[in-house]
């Protein structure tokens, strides 16, 4: 039985392998890049805007609102990373409505790559917002004793991110495949619809968790900003 789309191999030479995961990922990337380029070719600031521009604006503003709700001020700085994660995973999971499509997020290599991106992005945003030493301070944040636990949690949450997304998507496909051999009439369609819901929720969860981790890394600068604000308010 096929567990992941990694096992469908089109072309192999040495250690370079072109499998279904890579092909689907590049297809989705191409679709998203070309689509975004086509839509943003003629942006207007009038009252009357085109339909697709309206859709994109809704997506961007709602992602911004979500990021700001979690506690990251200036979401424009983070939406490039978090919004891309969300849109890519959501697009991967949305297309299971097409027949013969296998989501690339159902392969552990894709989800591990995304989780490693989050793992790298946390220190990047932390250092660029608060400076090197303030970022290192978050590792010893309550006391110095917590240092090894903080490092372990950094690694284990990366693993959890990867396995959570992979497990959810893979299990959705697997359940449909098993049900197809038991009750092939209507039940697989219901499970497929449930898989669609799970895919959307997982895309949301993945990006929310990435936002929470980044917010934990930049908390020093947020605290400083709040202190400054309260000082100026008391002066007034």
């Amino acid at each position, binding site marked *: 039985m096929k*567990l992941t789309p990694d096992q469908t191999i089109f072309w192999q030479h040495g250690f370079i392998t072109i499998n279904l995961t890579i092909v689907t990922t590049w297809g989705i990337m191409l679709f998203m890049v070309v689509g975004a380029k086509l839509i943003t070719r003629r942006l207007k600031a009038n009252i009357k805007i085109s339909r697709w521009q309206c859709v994109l604006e809704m997506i961007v503003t709602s992602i911004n609102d979500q990021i700001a709700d979690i506690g990251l001020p200036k979401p424009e700085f983070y939406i490039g990373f978090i919004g891309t994660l969300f849109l890519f995973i959501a697009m991967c999971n949305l297309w299971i409505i097409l027949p013969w499509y296998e989501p690339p997020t159902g392969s552990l290599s894709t989800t591990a790559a995304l989780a490693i991106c989050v793992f790298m992005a946390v220190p990047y945003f932390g250092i660029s917002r608060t400076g090197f030493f303030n970022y290192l301070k978050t590792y010893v944040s309550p006391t110095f004793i917590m240092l090894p636990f903080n490092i372990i949690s950094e690694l284990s949450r990366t693993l959890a991110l990867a396995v959570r997304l992979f*497990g959810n998507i893979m299990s959705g496909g697997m359940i449909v495949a098993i049900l197809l051999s038991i009750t092939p009439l209507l039940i697989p369609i219901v499970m497929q619809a449930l898989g669609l819901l799970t895919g959307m*929720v997982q895309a949301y969860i993945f990006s929310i968790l990435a936002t929470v981790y980044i917010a934990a890394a930049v908390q020093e600068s947020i605290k400083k900003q709040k202190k400054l604000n309260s000082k100026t308010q008391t002066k007034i």
Partner: protein
Amino acid sequence: MDNVSIIAVASIVTAGFTTGIGCMFPALSEGKSVAQALSSIAQQPDAAPTITRTLFVGLAMIESMAIYCFVVSMILVFANPFWNHIIAK
């Protein structure tokens, strides 16, 4: 019983137990958290968006425990490393 059948029996039985027990407790805790969230939404409908968002994040965290168990049992059934080792020998 020879080695091959011992490995087969052990991994199939363990896979069943893993998914069984690993679904039971996350289901209990998910029920608890949903019940709590519903009663808090009923008490404070204004806070519904925040509660719902936190609930979804928490549910996904709890559900991922069940998913880990499922992944382990899938590995035991379909991609068993011990089985592959015995077959290759």
